[in-house]
């Protein structure tokens, strides 16, 4: 029993069919619980007022936006090294989900920035990095869409993902160099555990769990769709030949 068993599409379809309802159910459960807890039952922060409630969406979305890219990087590497189709398709499946999370992080960040910094948009290093990440996601998705042969597309997007990761990291540091940022002082730095009071931290934890599960569920669903689409193409091609 090893993880590579799931590289077999049939095995993957079986296992994911069994796991999907559970993951989806848990995702919905924890998202609903976490967001309701965060929205209705947490006090206002003494400095940020009620805008502190935005972190229950902003922080998990931002975390998963980056983690989705990391997952695409890992699955792309597995595809390049071991040529498992499921891996390449999982990378393809994750990209639109990651893009959605990135946009959520940007939108909630802008809405939070308006009252806190007095502007919808600041060329703050973090915001700028996320904007650049959006561009990388769009380029990656566009390359998948543009190439017809599925194996060629998988190879080229995997190479793009590797090179893009390096340049995304470089951009992150370049942006830091370019503008040291407005803020991110300790009291506002939300992703440092010790700076967030317990009363905000626990619902946030539930929301993060919910976003992780939702991501897994969506990627499973989309990968299943991609595997079916691949089989559909193969059958249609065989029909044309016959």
């Amino acid at each position, binding site marked *: 029993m090893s993880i590579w068993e799931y590289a077999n599409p049939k095995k993957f379809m079986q296992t994911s069919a069994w796991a999907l309802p559970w993951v989806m159910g848990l995702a919905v459960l924890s998202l609903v619980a976490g*967001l309701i807890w965060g*929205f*209705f039952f947490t006090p*206002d922060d003494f400095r940020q*007022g*009620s*805008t502190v*409630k*935005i972190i229950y*969406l*902003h922080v998990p*979305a931002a975390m998963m936006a980056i983690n989705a890219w990391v997952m695409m990087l890992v699955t792309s590497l597995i595809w390049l090294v071991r040529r498992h189709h499921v891996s390449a398709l999982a990378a393809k499946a994750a990209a*639109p*989900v990651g893009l*959605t999370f990135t*946009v*959520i992080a940007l*939108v*909630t960040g802008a*809405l*939070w920035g*308006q*009252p806190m910094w007095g502007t919808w948009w600041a060329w703050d290093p973090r915001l700028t990095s996320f904007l650049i990440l959006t561009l990388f996601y769009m380029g990656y998705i566009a390359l998948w869409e543009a190439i017809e042969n599925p194996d060629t597309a998988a190879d080229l997007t995997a190479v793009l993902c590797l090179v893009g990761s390096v340049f995304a990291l470089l951009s992150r540091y370049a942006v830091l160099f370019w503008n040291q940022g407005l803020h991110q002082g300790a009291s506002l730095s939300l992703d440092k555990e010790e700076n967030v009071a317990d009363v905000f931290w626990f619902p946030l934890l539930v929301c993060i769990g919910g976003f992780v599960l*939702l991501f897994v569920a*969506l990627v499973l*669903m*989309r990968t*299943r*769709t991609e595997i*079916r*689409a691949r*089989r*559909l193409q193969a*059958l*249609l091609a*065989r*029909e044309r030949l*016959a």
Partner: protein
Amino acid sequence: MMPDLGKYAFEVLSSYAASLLLLALIVGLTVWQGRRVKRRLAEVEARTEAMSGGRADG
């Protein structure tokens, strides 16, 4: 029931609205694509099986 959001009500509510809308969008898109591909695959599989006279291949 509704908590008092004070002067930031617009920002908080629109954050939740926008995020939930985007999440609903990606979930809806995923489900819709999944159903469509599943249906088409079922059609084509049924057709090929009928054509090959019930012979199980592939």
